[in-house]
């Protein structure tokens, strides 16, 4: 039996990778993937705790997160395509129309 702390360490590592990627990368698609990474990091700690406590709540939550993430991916990719078509770039620093 692998102790839960390993799972949690892996989960924290994944999440930290996501955050770092999100803060350092400029390409919108990379940002998008970083978000997925963070979500999955959290999912991992959900299932780890659920297994440890013998409860189904965590598993159900994970399914919710996956469904929402899938929906978000669909909408997000559509937005990305639209951004690319109008601005011909995927660099987030140049997508700043709402700036004062």
């Amino acid at each position, binding site marked *: 039996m692998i102790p839960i702390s390993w799972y949690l360490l892996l989960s924290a590592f994944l999440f930290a990778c996501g955050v770092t990627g*999100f*803060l350092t990368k*400029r390409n919108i698609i990379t940002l998008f993937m970083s978000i997925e990474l963070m979500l999955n990091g959290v999912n991992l700690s959900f299932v780890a705790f659920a297994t440890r406590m013998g409860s189904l709540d965590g598993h159900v939550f994970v399914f919710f997160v996956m469904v929402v993430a899938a929906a978000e991916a669909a909408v997000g990719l559509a937005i990305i395509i639209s951004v690319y078509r109008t601005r011909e770039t995927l660099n*987030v*620093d140049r997508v700043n129309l*709402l700036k*004062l």
Partner: protein
Amino acid sequence: MNSFFQYLWLIPILPLAGALINGLFGKRFAKSMVASIALFFTGASFLVACAQAYALVNSGVDAVEPIYGTWIRVGKFSVDFGLYLDHLSLVMMLVVTGVGFLIHVYSVAYMEHEGGYYRFFSYLNFFMFFMLTLVLANNYLLMFVGWEGVGLASYLLIGFFFLKDSAANAGKKAFITNRVGDFGFLIALFLLIQHFGTLRYATVFDIASHFPAETTAGLLTAIGLLMLVGACGKSAQIPLYVWLPDAMEGPTPVSALIHAATMVTAGVYMVCRSNAIFSRAPIALLAVATIGTLTSFFAATIGITQTDIKRVLAYSTVSQLGYMFMAAGVAAYSASVFHLMTHAFFKALLFLGAGSVIHGVGGEQDMRKMGGLRKYMPWTFWTMLIATLAIAGIPPFAGFFSKDEILWQAFSSPHGSKIFWILGVITAFMTSFYMFRLIFLTFTGEYRGTQPKAHSAHGGHDDHHGTPHESPWLMLGPLVLLGVLSVVGGWVGIGNRFEHFLDPVIQKVSVEQNIALTGEASATPVSESEGAGESKGTEQLLMGISVLVAFSGLGLAWFLYVKRPELPAQIAESAGGLYKMVLNKYWIDELYSAVIIGPLVALSRIVLWQTVDQKVIDGTVNESAVAVGNVSQLVRQQQSGLIRSYAGWIAAGAAVVVAYMVWMGTR
């Protein structure tokens, strides 16, 4: 009470209806339509007033008081919408509606060529409404409403030619000067509410009648003096008379109606109405008489030197109002109201005549540029001559009876004094002199005016001003009617009939109280009907003196302005400084502007405007706006538009939250 008196409300409301119709829709009406509306409503009001007066006199009751509903009720204190008709308000009501109607008729022709025709008649009707409210109210608060209303109408009408700076300023001056007086009146009302618990005339006078006469200053004296302040403002007495001469900037019918015949007598009316209070406050009475006497004297001296025809009449009005105050101040209220009535007739006539003259010579108001108008405008001349004879106090014209009554009362009343009488007689002499000076300068000799002018100040009708011309009949009609009244108006006073007519209004202070007043047992009220032969003799002697004085004024004016017209200039020359002082109205206007207005304006400018307004109020608002702006300037750096910077902040925030939770958990 006869139910007929329920219709008393029609008298003030009819002019209001006229004012509203003309004021709201008059712009689209033809001039004749505007005039008909104004005349119809004032005429109807006059007819109703006549019917009511007739009914009251025949009903045998002293007063009727129809109440139409409650206006204000606070705890035990309540004020009604109620009217009050007794013999005093009856006289006032008839004078206001009657003279007012005649002046409306006159204005139809006089204002024909002026702009704002509908506005003029709307204001004029508006004035009638408030004036009738003032005289018919059954309580002091409603009277105050009328009091303020006539002030407003007066302001609007003085400033009628509002494009002229001087007219606009004169309107403001009248309004602001009246505010000073209203302040006193208001405090008197507060004192009444505080100590009497009501403002209704009948109750107030009933309570007051249980007060003993005050030999020292007390509540009634305070109320009386404060009311006097109000009356001084409205009736143009020292020290608040300065607005009335300037008020002559208004159209001449306005001067006749508001600033001679009716509104300015409101103060006299108030003092006479409050006789129950004044009669018990001898100090207040003395103040009334002193102010009245001084005003009549000084205004008459100024009147002698003025050359503007309307200004002479204005100072004469101030002077005559002083007479009325003198009479009221010696507790001869009926003489005061009597003079008020006759004065309304002859002074309205004088102003309308002056208007006719101004109209005839194309807007010129300087008497030095008139002269010889008698042959051009005979009707105006004869009617004005009648009015002048009346104001000068020459029998059997109206002014003789009332002025003689006042002088006799000033001499003989227990509140009177020889000094009042002497000053009164000198004033009568000056009155006669300056009035005949006006007549001689205007109507006799040769015409000194300039020949046809391209532009007349009077506007519109300079096409036929080669020579002076007589005014149209619509203007002469009122002159003639007022002329008749100026002759016969005084006859009602023969045999003290007028005095007895007002008897029910005047509360007699009982004999013991009179003794307390004067400290003498012999001070029973002097009444001519029971007077001894000696007092009858004295009265006739005094009457002789006042007639003599009137004729000598006439004679002097004739000598100086007809016989030796070069003399007045020489006299003015030799009088030097004195003449200059009187000509400049004792520099009272200059004094006021230096002592009161200047500091007030400076205070307002430096303290109120530049400090309180600009620094404190504006400062608070502007500084808080600037502070918010500065903070925002800092915070807006956050909104960089860089998604990663936003994300960084979110991450940092999340880290802080997590750290906090961990810290909380480990505690």
